[in-house]
């Protein structure tokens, strides 16, 4: 198309030309994006699965296999392995097929954004045995220390999460207390300087545990059915 500066501006192109060009570009871009999406989909799902696996085996260290379950008022159902994102909890089994614990997600609002955690729960000891952060955009160096600080992690060696005798609620609410003020086994000692994020972890655990654990105990029989056949831990 000639665009000489000297001559008068050329007649405006017909609408068809405009629509045609835009349409052509749109189609081409649509094709490119759709192709990329198809090419990368498997890999992305794989990445997500691996990330989840790693998190589950981190909070359930003795487990070598895991299974996903969906839990609601009606019961506990085993899920197929690729049902990522729909699972309410993951059960970990060791080599002999015995249940070692359950990994459950929880989330709560932190300083910057939502903090998502995955915690391990032991049915026999009725306590939370481990916690790992799945997602957080907390302050680097301050809030994000909940992920790495060993003293904070020590809170979760056996965090009391007992249910009352009717198994309808937690005996004591899980709560985060100021650094150095922890007196009971259901309290979380906050990281000084990162109280909001530490409190968020506490809220996430409390909310998730109070909601899921009663239901879990009601239907726990489903966890022991069949031996798990899924992939082994990394």
């Amino acid at each position, binding site marked *: 198309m000639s665009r000489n500066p000297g001559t008068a501006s050329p007649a405006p192109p017909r609408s068809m030309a405009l629509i045609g060009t835009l349409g052509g570009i749109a189609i081409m871009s649509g094709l490119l994006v759709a192709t*990329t999406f198809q090419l990368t989909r498997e890999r992305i799902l794989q990445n997500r699965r691996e990330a989840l696996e790693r998190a589950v085996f981190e909070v359930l260290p003795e487990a070598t296999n895991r299974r996903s379950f969906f839990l609601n008022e009606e019961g506990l159902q085993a899920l197929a392995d690729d049902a990522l994102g729909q699972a309410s909890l993951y059960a970990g089994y060791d080599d002999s097929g015995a249940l070692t614990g359950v990994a459950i997600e929880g989330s709560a609002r932190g300083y910057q954004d939502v903090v998502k955690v995955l915690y391990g729960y032991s049915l026999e000891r009725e306590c939370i045995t481990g916690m790992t952060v799945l*997602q957080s955009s907390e302050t*680097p160096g301050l809030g994000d220390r909940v992920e790495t600080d060993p003293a904070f992690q020590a809170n979760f060696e056996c965090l009391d999460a007992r249910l009352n005798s009717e198994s309808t609620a937690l005996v004591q609410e899980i709560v985060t207390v100021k650094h150095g003020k922890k007196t009971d086994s259901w309290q979380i000692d906050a990281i000084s300087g990162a109280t909001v994020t530490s409190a968020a972890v506490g809220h996430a655990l409390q909310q998730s545990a109070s909601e899921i654990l009663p239901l879990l105990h009601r239907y726990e029989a489903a966890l022991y059915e069949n031996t798990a056949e899924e992939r082994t831990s990394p």
Partner: protein
Amino acid sequence: MMKDPRAPEALSWSVFTQGIWRDNPVFVMLLGLCPALAVSNTASNALAMGLATTFVLLCSGVLVSLLRTVIPQQVRIASYIIVIATFVTIVDYAIQAISLELYKALGAFIQLIVVNCIILGRAEAYASKNHVLNAFVNALGMGVGFTFAMLCLGVVREVLGSGTLFGVSLFGPDFQPWAVFVLPPGGFFILAFWLFLFAVLKKRKQVRMAGRQATSETEKEVPRAT
């Protein structure tokens, strides 16, 4: 610009270096600041963002240049934006496939590359008027300049704000990091500092050059004095 903007520029070294120093997109043209400040809290994020932006710059520059005779004036901005958005989506999926960690760290700012003024600006000002090879080289220069700027910010912010560089701890566990620098205000301050530094250097250079010019003029005048 007096020279006919439609005359294709000859491919020269300056087509490449223009984007690195003289017309650095961040430090000189003050474009693309949103990602520059948001993801430069660690050096590796800064590097990844710089590379992703460079990739989009290159692909869109080449495509726009290839299509420059076909796209009518009236719809050119819309077309450029669609092209850029396509490549940004591709980069988005590519990063998810490569590393979920990196993707989580960069977050929504990958998709925000599409409104990075640098890319649209380059497409409009250069790629649409020049030959594919020129467009490629210029885009590469701009990308390198942008990555350089990102690294300037990222390295300083990470070293001061976390005591690490690319994740490697520099000062040992007892170092008290200056946390503000990995937070939003720190981004503003560090960029302001770099701009200030460059302004000081530029001023010194001007003073020096003015001094030299003054000396050469007085030297010329001396013979006239009796």
